[in-house]
């Protein structure tokens, strides 16, 4: 086991580093209540305090401890990223795979729906959704799900089309397997690799999009400690209090790097054509 891991690390050092970063972020998110010295919404301190022993990342414009907000932010941002991606990509994957296999009018119809959703400018879609539903963390997730689902449906559909054309599936069909069985037992497992890659790379996409939505006032409620929201507030004091953007910015970058490197490695490892170095 360890030997195998060592081999993976040697073959995919970036991926391994990504995995470590992701692991740390997840731990921070899980342990946020224990790690954070203060509450994320606690406003009692002086504003714009520079980093010090007491406030290692300084305080923000209303006197909140930036460190505590960054820690709680891990929980919120990962929650937003994970939840939206799991829902969105899973929904899209099922949709794509099923319609690809069923084919015919259902496929053509669903393709039009996917086109429709993808043709709408994403930021405007999210902005109007947030305005219509009201600002809350769960509504941000819903908006992201609506952005992610069609992309996933389209990608997984083309993957599933490829899989469905293989003799392997034809054999299963010839053997008298029901459609549902073919989808569940044969098609879906074969699309798993693409699914995992989509999930890992889109978590960071979701985190960054949430940040952009915060900037135009349609992200998570600004008192919630989302990294993107902190960045959006921090740019108003870029020079006076650079720590307000530096630390959440660092957190976002780490998350994006970690998740993408991990995703890339999974892709490399699962795609036999790219296995080059691992042999």
């Amino acid at each position, binding site marked *: 086991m360890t030997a195998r891991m060592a081999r993976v690390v040697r073959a995919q050092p970036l991926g391994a580093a990504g995995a470590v970063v992701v692991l740390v972020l997840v731990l921070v998110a899980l342990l946020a209540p224990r790690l954070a010295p203060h509450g994320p919404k606690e406003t009692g301190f002086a504003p714009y305090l520079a980093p010090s022993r007491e406030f290692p990342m300084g305080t923000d414009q209303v006197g909140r401890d930036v460190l505590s907000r960054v820690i709680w932010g891990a929980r919120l941002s990962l929650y937003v990223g994970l939840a939206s991606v799991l829902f969105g990509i899973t929904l899209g994957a099922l949709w794509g795979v099923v319609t690809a296999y069923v084919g015919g009018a259902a496929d053509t119809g669903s393709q039009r729906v996917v*086109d429709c959703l993808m043709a709408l400018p994403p930021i405007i*879609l999210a902005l*109007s959704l947030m305005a219509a539903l009201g600002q809350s963390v769960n509504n941000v997730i819903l908006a992201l799900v609506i952005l992610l689902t069609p992309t996933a449906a389209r990608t997984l559909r083309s993957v599933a089309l490829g899989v469905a054309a293989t003799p392997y599936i034809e054999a299963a069909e010839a053997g008298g397997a029901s459609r549902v069985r073919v989808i569940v037992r044969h098609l879906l497992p074969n699309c798993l690799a693409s699914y995992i890659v989509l999930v890992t790379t889109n978590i960071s996409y979701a985190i960054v999009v949430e940040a952009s939505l915060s900037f135009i006032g349609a992200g998570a409620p600004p008192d919630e400690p989302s990294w993107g929201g902190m960045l959006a507030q921090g740019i108003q004091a870029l020079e006076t209090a650079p720590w307000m953007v530096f630390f959440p910015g660092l957190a976002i970058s780490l998350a994006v790097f970690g998740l993408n490197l991990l995703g890339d490695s999974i892709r490399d490892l699962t795609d036999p*054509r*790219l296995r080059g170095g691992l042999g």
Partner: protein
Amino acid sequence: MSTYVLRRLLLFVPTLIGASMLIFVMLRLVPGDIAEILVYQTGSESSAVQRRQIQQIRHELGLDRPIVTQYVEWVAGALRGDFGQSYVQRRPVVDILRERFPRSMELAILTLLLAMAWAIPLGVVSAVRQNGVLDYLSRLLSLSGLSLPLFFTGALILYGLVRFFRWLPPLEFVSFTENPWENLKQLVWPALAQAYYISAPITRLTRSQMLEVVRQDYVRTARAKGLAERAVIYRHALRNSLLPVVTFIGWWGGRLLGGLVIMETIFVVPGMGSALIQAVSQRDYPTVQAMVFVMALVFLIVNLVVDLLYAWLDPRIRYA
């Protein structure tokens, strides 16, 4: 071929109807219409007067009619190329589109060019030196673009230009035809930021395509023939691996028009994105509907063109 194009064009119709209906309904689900905004935002007159004024404005704009009637009327107008009057600017939306569309198109094209110039070489280097230091470096470099939200990169660019060069891109928009140099001086910055942001997936795709193609038979043959490595990579591998990359870029390009919202706002480019976001916040329904419609149409057309281009470049693909 022409029947294929015709069929694809016909498929535009349901998509456009769907997209326009979706935005039509969603806009009306957003709380507050222009009448309420105009009246409540000012809040100077007595509440009875305010209520009367709201009714009056709604009536003038036809907002008091059933939504189905409104939609049918909108479609009827759109078919004639008439997208109605902007509620805010009180002039034909078509005029607004005519002003704004070319600017956003220019920005989008500039962005794509810069993204390709930056991301494809990175991907090639990365593939050629697979698992080497250069591979890691270029992958990290392209990922770094993705790792910060665009508004932040944009704000940093503004800040940096002022801080270190005491210089700011022009605040006044000048069209390319009027003065190309002034125009580019303003547009190159948002294009750079946006290109940097979208480069990661392009680099990744170039890399994996290159890796895949390099292992294919004809490349092996070329190598076996004793062609220089350089020639193999550039003449054979790159050309063939670029196909999916081009598709991907085209696909991005189609969506890019709507993605420029934030860059246009920060760098004061009076394009469709900044107008659209303003129109949403002012509940200027006709403007939003028309702009979203145009963006959807561009998306579909670009997709079609990319598909045709793909088939033209790759003789293996034939249309049924």
